[in-house]
């Protein structure tokens, strides 16, 4: 091997490429930084012209996100005892008092429950099915696998009405269980396809050795295959979780009070005279941050996840 390789890009071309990509990254991250920073702006700062890059940080948006507030008369306001807590103080600055808790906390918890519930169920069912597809002769295997994938092509609205009617009959409308089952049904195609890819990569010899040692199929699956597939299962789980976390169409069409998740809620946050942008931004930040962290954790398997295992690095 010579020190000079024809396929290695020259230093100049590397630098130019780096500069261009950095410029793109700045442009593409600007809206995200803007969301995060708007969450820490006061109401007037958030809608000033020209848009403010430097501002005095305020927790108003976060306080507004978690509370409901009312405006009271001037005499009443003057007669109030001094504010007891820091958040009372922030709210008083805009001439209002806290009337109660908002529903954001509830909606966020719903997202957590439904997200984790459907992820656990998708992974449980998906691992079993993926193992069977990977290791056994299942009749009509290719047809079944394609069938599982094709369910993903359906526009959600095409099935929303029958699901709505069906759930009403079964008492599942607007329940956590109903949404968990629904998101599992949507995610299972991804789970089966991804997990099959991961299990295919585990050499069969390991299990065969275990079977010869007297393990049953179940034991071999549990003690040999599952530990080997752990990374694959974890990354598949994160993909399922992100999907359930982000889903909007079914959530807005099929839930209202009880089981509604955060995505349909955040756009409905309104303040006096229009949307309360710092509060919306605060809600969006809290909601998007976990996904950003997961994406960074997941970066090695990202490509596989988004292409249903069709492209592997």
């Amino acid at each position, binding site marked *: 091997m010579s020190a000079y390789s024809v396929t290695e890009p020259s230093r100049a071309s590397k630098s130019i490429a*780096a500069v261009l990509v950095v410029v793109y990254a700045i442009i593409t991250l600007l*809206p995200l930084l803007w969301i995060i920073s708007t969450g820490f702006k006061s109401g007037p700062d958030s809608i000033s012209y020209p848009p403010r890059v430097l501002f005095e940080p305020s927790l108003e948006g976060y306080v507004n996100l978690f509370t409901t507030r009312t405006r009271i008369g001037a005499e009443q306001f003057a007669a109030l005892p001094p504010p007891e807590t820091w958040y009372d103080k922030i709210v008083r600055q805009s001439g209002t008092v806290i009337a109660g808790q908002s529903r954001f906390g509830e909606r966020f918890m719903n997202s957590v429950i439904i997200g984790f519930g459907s992820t656990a169920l998708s992974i449980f069912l998906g691992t*079993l099915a993926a193992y069977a597809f990977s290791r056994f002769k299942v009749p009509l295997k290719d047809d079944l696998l394609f069938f599982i994938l094709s369910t993903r092509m359906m*526009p959600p609205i095409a099935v929303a009405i029958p699901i709505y009617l069906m759930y009403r009959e079964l008492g599942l409308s607007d329940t956590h269980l109903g949404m968990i089952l629904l998101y599992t049904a949507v995610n299972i195609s991804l789970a089966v396809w991804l997990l099959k890819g991961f299990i295919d990569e585990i050499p069969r010899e390991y299990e065969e050795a275990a079977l010869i040692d007297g393990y049953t199929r179940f034991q071999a699956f549990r003690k040999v295959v599952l530990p080997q597939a752990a990374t694959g299962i974890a990354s598949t789980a994160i993909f399922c979780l992100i999907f359930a976390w982000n889903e909007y169409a079914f959530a807005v069409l099929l839930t209202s009070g009880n089981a509604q998740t955060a995505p349909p809620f955040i756009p409905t946050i309104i303040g006096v005279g229009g949307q309360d942008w710092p509060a919306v931004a605060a809600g*969006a930040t809290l909601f*998007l941050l976990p996904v950003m962290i997961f994406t960074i954790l997941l970066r090695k398997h990202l490509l596989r996840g988004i292409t249903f295992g069709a492209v592997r690095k």
Partner: protein
Amino acid sequence: MTDTPIDRMTRATPRSVARRVRGLSDRAIAWLFVAPTIFLLLAINIFPLIWTVRLSFTNFAANRPGREVEWVGLRNYERILTSDGIWSNMQTTAHFLIWTITLQVVIGFTLAWLINRKFKGNDLLTTLIVLPMMLSPAVVGNFWTFLYQPQIGLFNYMVELLTGTPASSFSMLGAGGLAKWSIIIVDTWMWTPFVMLICLAGLRSIPDYIYEAAEVDRASKWRQFWTITVPMVLPFLMLAVLFRGIENFKMFDMVVLLTGGGPGNETLLASIDLKREAFEKWRTGYSSAYAIILFVTVFGLASIYVKALNKVKER
């Protein structure tokens, strides 16, 4: 490892007997493992789909359960296919699809090609660039309405800074014909990284020796690009286009929150129109037929495309 009585018994029992007594046959296990998934999909995907097909032949309205349901045959289909609305919605959808896919392919491929120069820190930059596509489209769509505000929005301000057009002189979401570009911009912002990642995988799959051989043959860089790089990345690129095509045909959440189909019907994609018919006008029978038409269209187009993709792969 723990040594339970069962483990000890296992070892004491002759293997062939143990298999027969304690283990299910492989075939039984296969069915046991696959059945729950298939059952769930039948119950929550296929059964509702068949129900939608059934409803599409009726005049049922989900908000009036008491009314007698009439069988109307193919009348719903006839009305949809002969209405002017659906064709203009299809055109809106096509405009959205063609532009988002073109922009994403061009920008995504260019980025991947640049990142493939393997400069220092390219891994970190890739991870950062990828962030937008993982976020909730609904929350993103909602937030972009803020960025698009004529006076105070960041987008308009940046346009003013770069081109001198006053920020308050145009409104991306209002009347004036810009709304259909506003959804294309947001979709491109979100999904370019998707195309980029897939192209990057394609570029990295090309073995170095092919370029080395071309270099020995004195092929110019330009020629290498068109005869090696492009053909070898093409199957990957086509896969990315397939995914984006299917997703954007179904596109609902981001656009609903950004424009809601407006102003007027300017950004009324077929899927948003479908939602209006089904959940605002409550014409269940009609919208079921609409849904079936859309589903068949995606499925048909996707199948033809996959055939073309397989041909490219075989080459």
